[in-house]
């Protein structure tokens, strides 16, 4: 084996890598929040009394969950402009990630909501709470606490999946890696190091999310 490893191009291009990391975290965080909010809305639709609304929510969730994220990105970035909806690469990336995340979040949230015993909702009503308060205190907070671990792993997956938006030239870590690769041809070193960077990012994200979970959901359970 005659290949000489050379990691120095990575040092030369560290500002690009750092900017890529920041951008990856930024679009992922926006998509996480938007995805969770949309996911909760979808869950509400799914449990609404109206059958067409329920059907709409289920169709959307299953369509998103059973098609590749890459095709969704292409659909939004290349397909939607035909309908007059034009986005730049980063906007399309954030939109695709949020919509994708919302379907998975909805599926997870539903599991949590179903886990709340009916008697608790009835008890809340008997205590005179309104529908909004019942949802807020009796359904969603315990439900979110119950599903928080699954949500966290979904968020980590979302962050890893954000690498696909490099395919439409949205600037983030993978895009930076490809750019450096094109200039230096040090593919082995670059993709190994960027892989490690993603590994570090996903570990940090897990730790931060777990810390947030401890802070918010540590009220006594029994």
């Amino acid at each position: 084996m005659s290949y000489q490893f050379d990691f120095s191009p990575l040092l030369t291009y560290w500002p690009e890598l750092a900017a890529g990391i920041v951008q990856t975290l930024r679009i992922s965080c926006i998509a996480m929040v938007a995805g969770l909010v949309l996911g909760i809305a979808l869950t509400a639709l799914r449990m609404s009394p109206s059958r067409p609304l329920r059907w709409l929510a289920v169709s959307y969730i299953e369509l998103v969950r059973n098609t590749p994220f890459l095709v969704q990105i292409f659909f939004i970035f290349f397909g939607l402009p035909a309908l007059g909806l034009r986005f730049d690469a980063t906007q399309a990336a954030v939109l695709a990630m949020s919509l994708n995340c919302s379907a998975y979040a909805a599926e997870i949230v539903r599991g949590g909501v179903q886990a709340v015993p009916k008697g608790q909702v009835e008890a809340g009503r008997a205590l005179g709470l309104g529908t909004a308060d019942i949802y807020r205190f009796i359904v969603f907070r315990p439900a979110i606490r119950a599903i928080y671990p699954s949500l966290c792993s979904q968020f980590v997956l979302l962050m890893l999946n954000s690498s696909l938006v490099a395919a439409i030239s949205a600037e983030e870590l993978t895009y930076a890696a490809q750019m450096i690769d094109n200039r230096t041809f040090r593919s082995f070193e670059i993709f190994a190091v960027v892989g490690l960077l993603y590994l570090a990012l996903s570990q940090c994200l897990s730790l931060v999310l777990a810390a947030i979970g401890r802070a918010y959901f540590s009220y006594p359970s029994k």
Partner: protein
Amino acid sequence: MIREFGFPELLFVLEGARWTILLSALAFVCGGALGLAVALARTARSRELRWGATVYIQIFQGTPLLIQLFFVFFGLPLLGLQLNVWLAVTIGLALHASGYLGEIWRGGIQAVPAGQVEAARALGLGYRSVMIDVVLPQALRISLPATVGFLVNLVKGTALAALLGLTEATRAGQLMSNITFEPLRVYSAVGLVYFAICLPLTLWSARLERRLLRRG
């Protein structure tokens, strides 16, 4: 000349879907074999094996599939490993699958009651026989819903091969979109093709899970 997105173009996408299915199957079989080894290492008595398997799983679950594929396709040839795109994508997807399947089956193996292993060992069975005759059949049944669920992810993951230039369903869609200038229709069609492949698997996985829950 600009072509319209008609039947021949749809046929081209469907032909691409054939490679999507073949690629998924190849990656699942190779990744499954490797994943079984990972699961066994993860539950082995040796601390080193367990530790090695944990690191392996962390690496493949903690990095993007796209970077894994880029590493295999662009990175390894620099070390003198000449890989064509099919081989590279299959290796990349199989490694990815082995990380996830290893973790899923680890859960299955550990869910088999410890008393089963103890009883089998008390009857004088060796490790091989304990695993093959007692633990793995039960573990497989427990982890079947999650395994099928991961298969859906694997099928969707093969779409990334398009970015390396392998003409499966998504790349076929890109090509058709380039000659017809009708990306909306083309990518809707591509999406529906994947939907048609994945939905039955998703439904099957959900049914298996319900059945498992009912049996307790």
